[in-house]
């Protein structure tokens, strides 16, 4: 359709000025948007309140549809479980038998571990969970991988707390609202997680790729020591994530590291546990001296 002939408003001065004003407003608005963008690039948490308000407004709808989606998933699972119940039962019985001995060994190891830790006088602020919520939406149209959690500061969720699901690490809290929180997923390119290989504790770092995978880069230079199928867990370095949270499974070896798929799938996590930051006090002190992302030169 051709545009209406508003470009040539005739001899009316008023119409001419009105047309001119819309262009002035358009260009001024563009400049304002660019300035807002520069502010938010310089200070990414600056407009957190606005975004939190947006998330709060749409959270009820998201919660509603999320419960429907989960019910649908559950129904599918129940139906398929009904059909192969007998064969599954046999397989599970076998598995229980096999894992019982392993479980006893693990218990013994746990006791031994606690005793050794007692000898070394190691003390962790372990495992205290803050709250349990659900992931209700994600930024599915942006390259940033951020999810919305169904609980916020009303349950004591704070910034920089790790979030995990039953099968592994999901991410960490970056913004909180009254009843929602935003979580930077481990697959975001911004999220750097200190990890280690489960077998030998080989230290490494993980960075998201933005497409559902993470890159594992070992601290040591040289040929990639990873094999397909290696299990990666968090190492606890840096004091944010607790050690030994299941993290990812290596799917491809690259020249200087490995590609891995996170074990926790945010779409299929039935719940998300917000945990206290591991060694929060130590981290707070460290942050006071050298905040993340800002290097400071120490005067000799």
């Amino acid at each position, binding site marked *: *359709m*051709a*545009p*209406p002939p*508003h470009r040539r408003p005739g001899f009316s001065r008023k119409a001419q000025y009105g047309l001119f004003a*819309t*262009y002035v*407003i*358009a*260009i*001024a*608005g*563009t400049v*304002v*948007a*660019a*300035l*807002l*963008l*520069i*502010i*938010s*690039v310089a200070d*990414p948490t*600056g407009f957190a309140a*606005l*975004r939190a308000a*947006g998330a709060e407004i*749409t*959270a009820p*709808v*998201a919660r509603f*549809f*999320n419960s429907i*989606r989960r019910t649908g998933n559950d129904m599918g699972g129940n139906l398929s479980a009904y059909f192969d119940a007998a064969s599954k039962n046999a397989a599970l019985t076998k598995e229980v038998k096999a894992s019982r001995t392993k479980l006893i060994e693990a218990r013994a190891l746990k006791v031994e571990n606690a005793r050794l830790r007692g000898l070394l006088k190691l003390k962790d602020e372990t495992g205290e969970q803050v709250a349990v919520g659900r*992931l*209700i*939406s*994600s*930024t*599915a*149209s*942006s*390259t*940033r*991988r951020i*999810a*919305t959690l169904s609980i916020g500061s009303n349950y004591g969720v704070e910034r920089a707390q790790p979030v995990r699901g039953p099968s592994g690490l999901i991410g960490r809290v970056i913004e909180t609202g009254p009843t929602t929180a935003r979580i930077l997923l481990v*697959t*975001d*390119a*911004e999220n750097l997680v200190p990890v280690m290989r489960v077998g030998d504790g080989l230290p490494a770092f993980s*960075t*998201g*790729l*933005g*497409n*559902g995978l993470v890159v594992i880069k070992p601290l040591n230079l040289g040929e990639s020591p990873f094999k397909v199928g290696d299990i990666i867990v968090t190492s606890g370095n840096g004091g944010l994530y607790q050690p030994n949270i299941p993290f990812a499974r290596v799917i491809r070896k690259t020249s200087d590291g490995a590609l891995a798929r996170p074990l926790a799938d*945010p*779409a299929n996590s039935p719940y998300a546990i917000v945990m206290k930051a591991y060694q929060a006090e130590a981290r707070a002190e460290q942050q006071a001296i050298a905040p993340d992302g800002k290097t400071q030169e120490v005067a000799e």
Partner: protein
Amino acid sequence: MKNPVTAIRLPLRPGREYESRFDREQSLLKMLAIPIASIVLASMVTTLPFLTTQPILPPFGLLMFLAWRLMRPGLLPVWSGVPFGLVDDLFSGQPFGSAGLLWSLAMLAIEVIDSRAIWRDYMQDWLIASLLIIIVLLGGLWIAGMAHAASDPIILLPQMLLSILLYPLVVRICARLDSWRLAT
């Protein structure tokens, strides 16, 4: 003999078959609110529980905005890219101001195209929308990369394809909304 049922309607409102069809007024509220509400609601689609591991959901707010602009030139003012874009930024996860800037630039670009190619057909509109979608998505990635570590542009490919293929559908929805908007 009974009359055949021609339309299913709620019993609350009396039928209008026998009312005068002359001199009916369009509702001003509907005329103004439908384009605005449809674009804002389309921007809010990202808050529905689509938990994806990569950016795959098309930017419905942008599609709706481009569809209204290309289908009804002159309806949205030249400066409307800024407010609609800023609303989209609240829900998209991009740095605040990113869509405000990009949508406004897209609007100005269409304004320039309007002054050159006045009579266009549907395919040309689709082409313009496709190019703008690609530019805005790449621009969004570039802006996200300024503030944070960015990912590879390749991961945007499925989203771009999906958005371009879904644009005609969004235009249909827009056309339906438009006929509802202007109905008396």
